[in-house]
Structures are given as structure tokens and as C-alpha cells.
């Protein structure tokens, strides 16, 4: 279980001087809690009865001195541990995020964004708490218990026995209840997460809720989740309070016992009243640390599971990494070749079978095929988002696996099926792929995507923010924005995944004309369903159920019976049946 700890400690290593400092500081103040009761006892038992006002003044000075010392040291100590905790958190977070960015898409496919975020924020915060509070409190508690016990037994061992006798009761009570409280806390946490999930999904998907007039249904569902939270919250409180109340009574009984027994001892002149007072003050500092120490292993367990989750992320090997000998492909020409490529997202469920195709630099390839055939998957492999399970992909004759990933991706632009834009200004969105772009280049890219006029008509032009706090774009406008974003990077390979589906033919033609100019000398892969987009391609690749069923030009494919021909007929005939005469006449 503790296996993770050495690893966490390794994060403290660079700061070992500070850790050492913290330990020394801690040791040096651990005796202060016993000094004050002793001083008071001394005052009551010795100073006051003897009317020694000089000694009294010394007591005064001693108290001030102890507090001053304690103040300086504890400030230093607390600051040091606080700093250490924050620093380790920073290091961990930085590492985790850097690592997350290295992980490939497959990692994200199987994980909820919310969970990844919880690791990066919540779990790491938990570790910080552990470092800043857990460890130190534990050490301090241990020290103070030992010191107090020694002092108590030195005072009056019989009385000390009475005090110590209370600890087991206290601890047992705690243990009995906490066994039931812990699962509730976990459950509460889960219910709370569930509630957040419902909230997030239904607020983000409010359009669907409203379209189906499901508001009342959603309110009911939400009500159920918060009712759950309510019930568990109450249950947890009851147990907590019972634990607290019984502890309070146990403590009172033993304090009472000590006073009673101590008083009897005083009557028999075995001790003095001031000592008794000091004694009972010290006993009070015994119980809570005892429980905290007993409970420490739970904190440790929680921290360990938080650490496990964080380290799991850190230990996930990115499926796609640069080979040590990988070369940077500085100037790509754009030749792409698939050699007997097989691929599946999940083991045993193959999506692409035996794909072989050769595309020359500068060619425009249209990919057609029924929905779910694997078109998106095919282009994802070119950008090396996933690794083929068998076969090779070559770019300019180099095996994709032997080329530096970043050098490839910088020269490939993908406009994916779903347009994801960031909630920043239009300009920053377009510049995302190429941060050093000049304003002129931004305008040029927007013009290519036929967005310039629309943007200029906006009051703030290119600086208009989009997203929840800015303006809304229609779906076609979003698509054109992502085309602009791809266009600005000057890629050698351009991939358009169904990215003009929301454009009318005229806008599409405009974009296409601009793109064609742009496509000059670039290899393009275009996934589309509309004939007009496909027909002018140099090469049409027909995919069906993960296999290439045909490759050729439009003329070739239309001429022979097959998937493409029927696709063509379907779309064309329905449109031309009535239209033809009208148009030809």
C-alpha cells in the first residue's frame, strides 16, 4: 500500500534542504505546549504562596519569551511546509498536463473529460493537503504525545495511568463510528458527482430538452438526485454528531476522574493543586492527537489512492511516441501510401481491413462510402492519431513510425467532421494553427473560407468573441471557421472530413474554388457525400465496411457497376429526373 510513498517523496527530493529545515523547526517547538501549564503550576504552587513578586515577573517574561519563540518558529515552519506543498503540486500538475498532452487520442476516447480534470485538480490538491498538513500534523502529534506522556508520568504516574486509561475508550468510540461514516462520505461524494453530471449534461443539452418539452421530467430527475444528497447528508451528520457527543462525555468523565482522584492525592499531600491544573490541561492535549494518529492511516489510504490515480496517468505510456531514431521530415511533398493496413479501435473489432492505396503528391483524393464505413478512421491514421494494428503507412516513402510526430502534424491540416472552436476571438481561432500569422494572412484565410464578408459586417470584426460569452455562429459558419483555421497553416496535406456538409452549393463552390487554388501542390483527402464535391477529384476511393471496394476517377467508376455507381445514380437520378428537361430545354 505504501508503495507510492517513496515516489511521492522523490518529488520532495529537490527541496530536501527545506524538508530538513521543517523537521528541525518542528522538533524545536514541540516542547512549547508543556511549558505553559508548567509555568502556571509553578506560579500557583510556589510563587503565589511565597509572595515572591520577582519570580512572578520572571514568569511573566518566560511566558512572553515562549510565545515569541513559538511565534517565530511556527511561522517559519508553517510557511516552509505550505511552500513545499504548493511547490510539489505545481511540479505534479505540470508533469501531468505535459504528459496528458503526449497521450494519444485513444486515451481520451476511453475517458471522461470530467474524470481527467478531477485528477489534474482534485487529486493533486489532495496530495498537497497531505504534504502541507497530513505529514506535519502526524509528526507533531507523535512528538507531542510522547512529550506529554513523559511529563505526565513524571508528575504523578498514578494519575497519568487514569488519564491514559481514557484513551482506548476514546479511540474505540471513534473507530466504531468512523467505520460507518466513511462509506457514507464516499457515497455522498459519488452522489454529488452524479448530480454534477446530470446538471452538466442537461444544461449543455438544453436544446434537446426543450425540443422534446421534457422540462418537467428533468426537474423531477434532478429533484431525485438532490433528495439523495439530502438523505445521505443527514445520515452522515447524525453519525458524526453521535461520535462527537460520546467522545465529549468520555472526555468529561476522565477529566472529572482526574480532578477527583487528583484532589484526593492533594489531600494526602502527594501533589499540589497547581500541578493538578497543569495535569488536566495537558491531558486535554492528549486525546485529539491520539485519534488523529489512529486515523492517520486512513488519510494515508486516501492519499495513496489519489496518488495512484495521478501516477496512473503519468505512467500511461503514450501509444504513439517518436522512436529514438525518428527523423524530422522538414519539407514534406505529400505522397501517402497505405500498405496492407489493418486497424480497430477496440481489440477484436476491426474497422479497417487490408487497406492499400498509393497517393502521389498533389493529388486530390475523394473518399466516399456509406456512413460508418471507416472514412474518418482512414484519415485519422494519416495524421497518426492512432497506430495501425498491422501494415505500414508511408509518407514520402518514409514509414510514419520513423518520423517525428510533430514534424508531420505541422504539415497536415485536418478539418474534422465536428467543428470545435474555442471561446476566444475569431482572429485567435483562425490563428490557432499558426500563431505567428499576420493579420493579412488571417484575412486571406477567412477569404478562402468565404467568411471575410460576414466577419467584416460584425461590429467588432475579427476581434468578435465567439462562444457562450460571445456571438453564436450558424453551423455552416462554424465549418467555414475551421476551414479558415486549416487554410492558414499552409499544410502539405489537407484533410477535409465532411467539412462542407453544412454549406450550400454556392458557398461550397466559393470555398472550393479558393481551396483549389490552395490545394495547388498539396495532397488532399476529401470526405464528402455530395457529388459535386467528389467528382472533380483525381482519385475516388470507395470504402465499404472497412474495405476499399474501388479506386479510380469518376469516369472510370461511374462506368462500372458497384457501390459508386449506385451512389451516383441515387443522387443524380432523383435530382435530374424532373430537372433535366427543364434545364436542357
Amino acid at each position: 500500500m505504501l508503495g507510492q510513498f517513496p515516489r511521492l517523496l522523490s518529488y520532495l527530493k529537490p527541496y530536501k534542504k527545506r524538508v530538513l529545515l521543517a523537521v528541525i523547526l518542528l522538533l524545536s517547538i514541540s516542547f512549547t505546549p508543556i511549558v505553559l501549564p508548567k509555568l502556571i503550576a509553578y506560579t500557583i504552587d510556589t510563587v503565589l504562596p511565597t509572595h515572591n513578586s520577582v519570580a512572578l515577573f520572571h514568569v511573566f517574561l518566560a511566558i512572553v519569551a515562549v510565545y515569541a519563540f513559538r511565534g517565530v518558529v511556527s511561522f517559519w515552519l508553517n510557511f516552509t511546509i505550505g511552500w513545499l506543498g504548493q511547490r510539489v503540486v505545481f511540479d505534479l500538475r505540470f508533469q501531468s498536463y505535459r504528459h496528458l498532452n503526449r497521450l494519444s487520442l485513444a486515451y481520451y476516447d476511453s475517458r471522461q473529460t470530467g474524470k481527467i480534470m478531477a485528477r489534474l485538480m482534485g487529486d493533486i490538491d489532495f496530495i498537497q493537503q497531505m504534504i502541507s498538513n497530513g505529514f506535519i500534523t502526524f509528526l507533531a502529534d507523535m512528538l507531542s504525545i510522547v512529550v506529554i506522556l513523559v511529563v505526565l508520568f513524571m508528575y504523578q504516574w498514578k494519575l497519568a495511568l487514569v488519564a491514559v486509561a481514557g484513551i482506548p475508550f476514546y479511540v474505540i468510540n471513534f473507530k466504531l463510528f468512523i467505520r460507518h461514516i466513511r462509506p457514507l462520505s464516499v457515497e455522498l461524494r459519488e452522489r454529488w458527482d452524479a448530480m454534477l453530471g446530470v446538471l452538466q449534461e442537461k444544461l449543455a443539452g438544453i436544446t434537446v430538452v426543450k425540443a422534446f418539452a421534457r422540462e418537467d421530467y428533468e426537474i423531477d430527475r434532478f429533484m431525485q438526485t438532490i433528495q439523495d444528497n439530502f438523505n445521505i447528508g443527514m445520515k452522515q451528520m447524525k453519525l458524526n454528531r453521535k461520535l462527537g457527543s460520546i467522545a465529549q462525555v468520555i472526555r468529561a468523565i476522565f477529566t472529572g476522574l482526574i480532578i477527583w482522584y487528583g484532589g484526593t492525592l492533594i489531600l494526602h499531600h502527594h501533589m499540589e493543586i497547581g500541578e493538578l491544573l497543569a495535569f488536566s490541561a495537558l491531558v486535554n492535549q492528549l486525546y485529539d492527537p491520539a485519534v488523529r494518529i489512529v486515523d492517520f492511516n486512513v488519510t494515508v489510504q486516501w492519499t495513496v489512492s489519489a496518488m495512484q490515480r495521478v501516477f496512473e496517468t503519468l505512467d500511461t505510456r503514450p501509444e504513439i511516441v517518436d522512436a529514438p531514431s525518428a527523423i524530422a521530415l522538414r519539407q514534406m511533398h505529400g505522397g501517402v501510401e497505405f500498405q496492407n493496413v489493418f486497424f480497430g479501435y477496440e481489440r477484436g473489432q476491426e474497422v479497417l481491413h487490408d487497406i492499400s492505396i498509393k497517393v502521389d503528391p498533389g493529388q486530390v483524393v475523394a473518399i466516399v462510402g456509406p456512413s460508418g464505413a471507416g472514412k474518418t478512421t482512414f484519415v485519422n491514421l494519416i495524421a497518426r492519431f492512432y497506430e495501425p494494428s498491422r501494415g505500414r503507412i508511408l509518407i514520402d516513402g518514409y514509414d510514419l513510425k520513423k518520423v517525428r510526430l510533430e514534424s508531420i502534424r505541422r504539415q497536415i491540416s485536418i478539418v474534422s467532421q465536428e467543428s470545435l472552436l474555442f471561446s476566444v476571438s475569431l482572429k485567435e481561432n483562425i490563428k490557432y494553427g499558426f500563431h505567428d500569422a499576420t493579420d493579412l494572412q488571417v484575412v486571406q484565410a477567412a477569404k478562402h473560407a468565404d467568411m471575410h464578408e460576414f466577419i467584416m459586417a460584425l461590429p467588432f470584426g475579427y476581434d468578435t468573441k465567439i462562444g457562450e460569452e460571445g456571438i453564436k455562429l450558424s453551423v455552416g459558419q462554424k465549418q467555414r471557421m475551421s476551414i479558415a483555421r486549416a487554410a492558414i497553416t499552409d499544410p502539405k496535406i489537407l484533410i477535409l472530413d465532411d467539412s462542407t456538409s453544412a454549406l450550400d452549393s454556392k458557398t461550397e463552390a466559393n470555398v472550393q474554388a479558393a481551396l483549389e487554388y490552395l490545394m495547388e501542390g498539396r495532397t488532399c483527402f476529401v470526405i464528402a457525400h455530395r457529388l459535386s464535391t467528389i467528382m472533380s477529384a483525381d482519385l475516388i476511393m470507395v470504402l465499404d465496411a472497412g474495405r476499399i471496394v474501388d479506386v479510380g476517377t469518376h469516369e472510370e467508376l461511374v462506368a462500372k457497376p458497384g457501390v459508386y455507381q449506385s451512389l451516383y445514380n441515387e443522387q443524380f437520378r432523383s435530382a435530374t429526373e424532373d430537372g433535366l428537361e427543364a434545364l436542357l430545354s
Partner: protein
Amino acid sequence: MRNFLRFLKEVKSYWRLLVVISVLTLLTSALSLPPPYLIKILTDDFTQKHLSANLPHILILIFAAYVLLASSSAITGYWLSYCITLLGQHFKMDMRKKLYAHMQTLSLGFFEKSKTGKLMSNITNDVATLDQLISGSFVNVLQDSVTLIAVIFILFKLDWRLSIVALSVYPIYIANYLVFIKRIATTSASVREQRETIYGDLQEKLTAVQVVKSYARERYEVLQFTGETRNLLGLNVRATALSTGLWTLAEFIGGLGTAILIWYGGLQVMQGRISAGSLMAFYGYIGGYLYQPTLRMIQLNDAIARTNAALWRIFLNLDTKPIVTDKLDAKPMPAIRGEVNYEDVWFEYQQDQPVIKGVSLHVEPGQMVALVGASGSGKTTMVNLLQRHYDVIKGRITVDGLDIRDIKLASLRTQVGVVIQETMLFNTTIRENLRYGRLTATDEEIEEAAKVANIAHVIEALPKGYDTLLGEDGVKLSGGEKQRIAIARAILADPRILIMDEATSSLDSETETLIQEALDRLMAGRTSFVIAHRLSTIVKADKIVVMESGVIKEMGSHHELLAEGGMYASLYSQQFKVALEAIAAQNELAGEA
């Protein structure tokens, strides 16, 4: 302050609980007072000879008093916590329900302008802040003020001169607190803001990780993130330093007070003015009963300030009136026949930027209407208006002759089925996703709808079939598969009017035709609106409406519009240019032959 009064009004409905809590609080603080006094009795009995006669009895009495006090305060404490938690939890639950229910009544426009994260935080964090004020600060302050008054009273009763001396550091203590707390508050506010920024960025970048990766922007993102977390580190360290500083100084000042008390008090004892027991009582009361309660009372001020912001946001939400509401005398919509009429409709999202400009459109029951036109010309907006997500600003829309503003919203929307342009599915099973269309649908009906949408075979091929989880936790579907699920969901709702906004844009023509044919059968006699850019999808529409910049440019059947030779005809020839040329060539060949 006005917010605050309103808040009190919200709390007023729990007055019974509040009364019980007040009584219990008084009891608890009363029960907490005696222990130092018991110490005084004890000390006096031992130090003053004339009192020590019946010591054994007194010892038993003190013991009994300790146990009795603890037991009764344990019991009252238990009930006090119970009532407070009950109040807090009830308040949170009621408030959350109120907020969420209210949000559900608001129209789409509201959600487009608010970040989902902010709305969530309103329901979760802001409400929790209020609860902290009620069940934390309020109760504490009640208890603390009672304790403070009682303790000061006891102290002055014991010895007023010693009281004044002992309390001499008290103002410094408070001043120290006040000096620090302002800075601490601003720092922790910045910490919170910084965290929110990081959170927001993270959320966005992780959701769009594919974009980040395809532009190889990882290094840049890491750099960005490092910068932000470094800021957070700085702020956190500052916050640590400040609060450590505050509490160390506070402890020192308190210690100084104790030292002065012991010194001056000791002198008084020597002079026989007070007893050693009284000194011990002072020592006990001042250490444990004075400083903490005072600080908590000062903190109330802070808590109120913080709550004020939360209150403001909550009430802002609650006060947002839904733009689209049922009229008081709104009638439920009878079964829709399907006649739809747009009469000179004007609409704008933003003031003075009309998106729909005087559209008039008449649709007979059972007709299929196709909307085509440039991207951004207002097609989606047109159908949004029919569902009454927004109200027109001029003109009116009628369904079966009834102005849609005069009928009950829910009765309209349940009869209008829609497949929205950006497919949105929930993170649950396929079956649950489909059933969202009609909650009472049986499994057979669900499968039937999936067949119509031509997705049944895909679902059945999945290992878990209809019980497959979708979304982040479950399987990923291709774009076209998602669209077909959305279509099946709309079909299941058995709508009288069906709206398909680019519902088949990611489908190949063959699949599309299959779906269309199945739909034709199903929707026979029902009105439908279809938005599509692939013209083959819409050629057989009864009415094709061509839109440009918010106005209707042309209207008619495929035939008529082609003959007109306007915008539609040019769209058409654009799309089929190559094919038409080919056919023309063929015809020529045939003609020559």
C-alpha cells in the same frame, strides 16, 4: 442590502426550525460556561484553608458536575447540529430545486448567453455559500454573542480591575486581524479566480484535444498551462504567508495577554485582593472563550460580503424572465393537422440586427417544405421560431390557424419533432437516448423507430445492443450513426410536424434515400420541414423555399424553380454541373448516332 432582505424572506419559511435552533444555541452556550468556574472552586478550596473542610464532597460534586454538564451539552449539541443540518440541507435542496426549475423555464436565448459552468456553479457553489451563512455563521454568531456577553459579565463580576488589564491586548488582537484579513480576502479571491480560469481552459482544451493534436499545439498548450499554474503557485504561497502571519501574530498577542494576566493577577493574589481560583478562572475564560468568538463575529461581516455576491447571482437568475412564456389564458394545442403560416415574420437575436426580415410562408397540412439557401441565411432560425424557442418581434406564426403565442408551449413542442443540426446525444444507453423522444415507448417501438432510421442493424451488431453506453464513457459512433440515432429519437416522439435540420448531411445518399422512403410512409399526411444542402434530398418537396439573408427569394416546386432560372436553378446547376455536362454530352452522342 436589498438582496439580503430578500434572502431573509427566503429563510423565513423555516422560522420554526430557527426558533428551535435559537433556544438550543442558548442552552449550549450556557452549558459551556461553567468548567473554568469549577476550576476556580477547586483551586480556592485547596489554597484557602478555611474552605477545605469538606473537600472530599466537593471533589465528588465537581466530578458529578463535569459529567452532568458534558452529558447535557452532548445531548443539546446533538439536537442543535441536527436542526442546523436539517435547516441547511433543506434550504440547499429547496433553493437548488427552485433555481433549476426556473432555469428550465427560461428560453434558449438565456442559455446561449451563459456559460454552462457558470450556471452549474450558481446551483452548486453559490447555494452552498448561502448555506454556510445560515447554518455556519448565523448560528455561531448567535452562540458567540451569548458566550461573549456572559463571559465578560462573569469576568467583571469576579474582578473588574483584573478584567480591564486582561482585556488590554484585546484591541490589538482585533486590529491585527483586521489588518490582515483584507489582504487575505483579496488574495483568496484571486486564487479562486485563477483556479476558475485554469479550470475553464482545461475543460475547453481537453474537450477539443483532437484540435490541439492536429495542429501539434501540445507544447504551446503546456506552456500556457504552466504559466497559469505558476501564477496560481505564487498566489497560493502568498495566501499561505498571509494567513500564517495572521495566526502566528494572533497567538503571540494572546500569549502576551496571558502573560500580563498571570503577572498582574499574581500580584493581586499576593496582595490578597483576589483568590488564586479567580485567577485560574480568568486564565480559563480568556484563553478559551474570548478570542475565538470575537473573531468569528468579525468574520460574519466577511461572510455576508461573500454571500452578497452569491445572492446577487442567484437572484439575477431567478429574476430573469423567460422570454417565451405561456399566456395566462393559453389553451392546449389540439391534435395538430399541420397547417403552418408565417405572416410577415421579423426576428432578431441582437437589437437592430434582423436575421429574419418579413417572411411570409403558407404550408398546407401534410406538405413537405424544403428550406435551402446560403449558410447563415436564417434557415435554422426559421424552424426555431416555429418551435417557439424565440418569439417573433413582428408578424405572427400560426399553426392550424392558432397563433403559437396563444397556446401552451409544451402542447406545441410535444407535437413538433425535431432533429437539430448539431447532433446531441446523452451519456446513457442507446435505448435511453431513443426513449427520450417518448418516455412511455416500449422496447418494440424503440426498435421499430431504429429500423426506420436505418440504424437498427448497426445497434444490433454492437455486443450490448440497445444497452450500449454512448458518450465519453461508452462507445464512439461515427457522425452519420449519431445522426441516425437522433432521427430515430424524433420519430419515436410521433410528431405531427417534423423538422429535419440537416439531419442527413453526414449520410450517404443511399442510406438517406432509404430513410426518406421509410419516413414518407410514416409521415404520410403530416407536415414536415426539411433543411438540406444536397438538393437530391429535397427535389420531391411540395414546396422549396429559397432563402437569402433572412428573406425568401424564391418559392415553388423543383420544377417551377428550375424553370424560373433564378437562384435555385443556379444552385442546382452548380451541384450537378459535371453530371449534367456528361448527360448533355451523352445526349449529343445519342443525337448524332
